[in-house]
């Protein structure tokens, strides 16, 4: 617009306003005196000079505007490309709003929110603020540092935004799910644990020692859960070993093997919940 191209215009406009006001107030007084006549002619001179200045500037601006046209058409097509990309992301968010992906368009792109959940429980939300430019880039985010965001961006961000968002969703939901299971174990089933639960940032390596009581006998087992795939919430490798000098009786060896299987197929806290249930059942049978 002309306003931004002629910075001094506000000053000139203001001076003109003042000058008009002075004229108006003078008309009210109706005292055309000598000194004031001189002043008014001076004022008129200044005003005319200002007016001609403004007209010259405006003419210069008009010339500049016409000479700028070819660049403007380039700007327009870039603008269109930018808008198209933005609309694309908007469509993705609209289509997948029930899968925990939501977002808001910003002045330079889009701010995506990933809501994580595990088996119906809503967990943490993470944000990625994208700037839609060439190349597409992440402005800032709240993704934890141990999630391989750079790896995922390198693979998909420039070529397939949808895949980028889905992949990120997968990693975050899986991490949130694993963390939830570990937290639940520590919170609700601490009584079973013989020592602290050992975990790492990604919660993809969990080690713990737990004791199980059955029919008056108690044994201690050592479990190590590995999640080699960062997009899963059930372990890929489970080892349960017997802690102690004595050899395990056959029935308990069966228990150990069944535990290994349980950890592979059921969520961690659910496995311990089933232990609790079994103990209760056991107790009720005894009494």
């Amino acid at each position, binding site marked *: 617009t002309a*306003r*931004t191209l002629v*910075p001094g215009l*506000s*000053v000139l406009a*203001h001076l003109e306003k003042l000058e008009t006001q002075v004229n108006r107030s003078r008309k009210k007084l109706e005292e055309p005196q000598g000194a004031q006549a001189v002043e008014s002619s001076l004022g008129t001179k200044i005003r005319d000079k200002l007016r001609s200045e403004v007209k010259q500037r405006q003419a210069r601006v008009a010339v500049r505007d016409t000479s700028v046209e070819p660049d403007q058409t380039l700007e327009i097509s870039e603008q269109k490309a930018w808008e198209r990309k933005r609309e694309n992301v908007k469509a993705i968010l609209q289509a997948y709003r029930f899968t925990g992906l*939501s977002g*808001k368009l*910003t*002045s330079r792109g889009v*701010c995506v*929110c990933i809501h994580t959940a595990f088996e119906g429980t809503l967990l943490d939300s993470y*944000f990625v*603020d994208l700037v839609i430019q060439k190349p597409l880039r992440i402005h*800032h*985010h*709240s993704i934890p*540092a*141990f999630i391989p965001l750079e790896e995922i961006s390198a693979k998909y961000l420039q070529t397939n935004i949808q895949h980028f968002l889905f992949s990120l969703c997968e990693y975050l939901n899986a991490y949130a799910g694993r963390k939830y299971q570990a937290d639940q174990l520590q919170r609700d089933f601490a009584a079973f644990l013989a020592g602290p639960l*050992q*975990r*790492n*940032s*990604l919660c*993809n*390596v969990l*080690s713990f020692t737990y004791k199980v009581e059955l029919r008056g006998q108690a044994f201690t087992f050592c479990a190590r859960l*590995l999640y*080699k*795939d*960062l997009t899963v919430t059930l372990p890929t490798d489970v080892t349960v070993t017997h802690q102690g000098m004595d050899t395990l009786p056959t029935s308990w060896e069966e228990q150990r093997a069944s535990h290994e299987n349980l950890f592979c197929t059921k969520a961690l806290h659910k496995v311990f919940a089933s232990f609790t249930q079994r103990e209760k059942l056991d107790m009720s049978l005894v009494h």
Partner: protein
Amino acid sequence: MTKMMTVLKAWEFLSENQLQTVSFRKRKESLAQDLVLLCEENGVSLNDAALLDIIYTQFHWHQRVWDVFQMAKEPGEDIDLSDMEQFKSSFKKILQRALKNVTVTFRDAEENAVWIRIAWGTQYRKRNQYKPAYVMYYSQTPYAFISFSQLRSNTPLLCQALTIASKHHQIVKMDLRSRYLDSLKAIVFKQYNQNFETHNSATPLQERRLGLDINMDSRIIHENRIEKDRVQRVTQDIFGDYSQPRLEFAQYKLEIKFKSDLNGGILAEREEPLRCLVKFSSPHLLEALKSLAPAGIADAPLSPLLTCIPSKGMNYFKIKHK
């Protein structure tokens, strides 16, 4: 005094009763003697003392200068399947294999972080417990924060131990250094701006006006209001409306040729580039830079060399003539 109490309490080596017997209003020397006596009563070991040293550093990290190192894995590398205990034991083993005379102490911290204290010795010299190195590392991330007390001759060994123990392949020292460990963390983990536009935010962040009070006396008119608005907008676009991470300086090493509008001159004819160092210092550098254009001291937008500091994670620059 209360900080000393906090540190001692976090140490959990002296009991509540013992701590209550100590008077913190005494002179430093006699207070120290009292504490030493109590420690000896409890049978204090070198490890306990090292732990106390870590806790003190955890409360006073701003008294040290921290460097940031970045590690990288090979592309297509397997996922790290080690836990914190494996990392610690691996790290300690590597150092002890190379230098028999070394004290390594660990203390776990929140958010899967570990603080490591290393006191160095050599084959012929005893370990120097007064000049240890400290490392702060968040497991399964590529960044480590290291602070040395003296000559860095042990840097390569420390870096090697870190890299191998954390299952990485290479390590590079970043051009980023500061006393403010929390700001360094915010910069490399890109956590310095946690204001996100969500469905819940009423007005887009960019539209909120900064500074100019619309309800001011209508007889006072701002000249150059348009320019002022532009400066505010540009500043906000670049710096955002969150508080900047805290750094004390930015240093630019220049190796450039002299450029002049005037033809000739001895400096312009000089073949070799000129070398100079420009250093910006401030109690809070980024906030100071942010306020330059609105204060009218500099043009907006500022040079990208200044504004790229948090996004590039650098406050040491080398600028060479192309």
